[in-house]
């Protein structure tokens, strides 16, 4: 079954509530609650089928960025400047390898979301590792070319992530 789509159905519910139910409700807190419910249903009616592709694209983008981060950390490891970041590099590699082993052709939105949370966690951990002093004796991490390069890369990634999020979360008709 393909029709009605969930989006069509939800949009129809929102229109019915707005046109048939809302006019019968007097002004006040209950009416305001129903107006909010209608706005949420309208947003979900537009966003529901974007969630899977959004998470898929987001995961691929984060994975690709983490691969590039690993390459930078490999380089830093080779010249000895990033020895303390080696455990972080290994954890990122392990996370990336886990996806290659999944073997699922069409992951469910729930699986994509779980992977997204895992990758988000890796990005948080990476940022903390880049900020942490290299040894307990140092007060702070000295700026290094690798750190600057990775942080700049992450900043661009974050912008892309938010742009994708806005595609899904913006209310219908909102200006981008």
């Amino acid at each position, binding site marked *: 079954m393909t029709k009605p789509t969930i989006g069509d159905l939800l949009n129809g519910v929102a229109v019915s509530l707005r046109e048939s139910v809302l006019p019968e409700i007097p002004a006040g807190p209950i009416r305001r609650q129903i107006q909010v419910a209608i706005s949420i249903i309208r*947003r979900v009616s537009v966003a529901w089928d974007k969630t899977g592709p959004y998470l898929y694209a987001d995961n691929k983008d984060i994975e690709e960025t983490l691969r590039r981060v690993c390459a930078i950390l490999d380089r830093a490891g080779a010249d000895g400047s990033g020895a303390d970041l080696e455990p972080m590099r290994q954890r990122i590699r392990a996370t990336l390898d886990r996806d290659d082993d999944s073997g699922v052709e069409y992951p469910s939105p729930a699986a994509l979301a779980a992977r997204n949370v895992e990758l*988000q966690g890796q990005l*948080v951990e990476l940022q903390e590792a880049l900020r942490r002093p290299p040894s307990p004796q140092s007060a702070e991490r000295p700026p290094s070319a690798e750190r*600057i390069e990775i942080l700049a890369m992450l*900043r661009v990634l*974050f912008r892309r992530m938010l*742009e994708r999020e*806005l595609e899904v979360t913006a209310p219908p008709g909102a200006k981008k």
Partner: protein
Amino acid sequence: MTVSSAAAVEDLVIRLKGLLKANLHRAEEIQIDNVAPITAGNARQAWEFDVRWIDRGEEKKVSCVMLRKAEAGQLETDLIPEFRIVSALWRSGVPVARALWMDSEGRWLGRPAFIVEKVEGATDLFTLLKSESAERSRAIAQQLAAIAAELHTLDLNKLGIDFLPATTRETAAAQQISYWESLFLKHRMEPHPVMAAAFIWLKEHQPIARRVSIVHGDFRFGNCLYEGHRVNAMLDWEMVHLGDPVEDIAWAYRALWGPQAFLSLDEFVRRYTELSGIPVDSRTLLFYRLLGEVKHSIISLTGARSFMDGRTRNLFLADRASTISSYLMQFLDWLPAEGTRD
């Protein structure tokens, strides 16, 4: 959510009479009329009503507003400091409602609540942001600058506000970062790497405050109770704290609700500095504008979490997490390039 059914009103009247009897020792024939719910944000329930009583043969009357803590919401603030700061600021030059009575533990009213004298006027952000009310909005924005100047230059030692956590010029920013980060870690429903990046940036760029002042914490157009072109009271002191005064200016000028269409930020700052003598450093202002985006994201997250956990059924909070992306995008838009000083 407030339901103004007859039963709810009757119950509230009984509760209010209990509180008033405990506070008005000589009062006889306490009468409560015209009870009605009013809109007051998502963190508290608000009701207005009139109280009449006889005190040693003389009839007294006061119109009141009661603010009662909501079951759960987007802020986890204590009502006691709010009541005490409003009491301390009465007749200080900063327009506030007169604080009357407090039920700090919810003994009478079921949840913590306080009552202030009703101040005439309206709070209507949408009207203020409309271009057709430009003249009034500019006048109110100018008063906002004057109120900020008044508030931020009050002598803290004379006000008796030691109930607010102490801070110093050096620690003001760190305390705010720490407060909001702890809320973020408590309420987040996923890791949020952009928010983590934001906190790292904020920690690495903390400004030293020019002075420590009372910071309203939610200082903005939407919290001005105005009548015509005049601000009669500043409302919603629930996020009040001691800190860097620039924080209030940055919050007032968030893109979402700021009066920039009627009074530019530069004009506001010029007027504020003229009146207060407090210079506003552009780097400090940027820091607090960035913190403001993070702060509003966390307020939204807290509301969404309260709803998801079933601690509130207020639908205004249900989808608040979806607003965060636009605040964080604003954060990235304002963020200086890596390696620059401002």
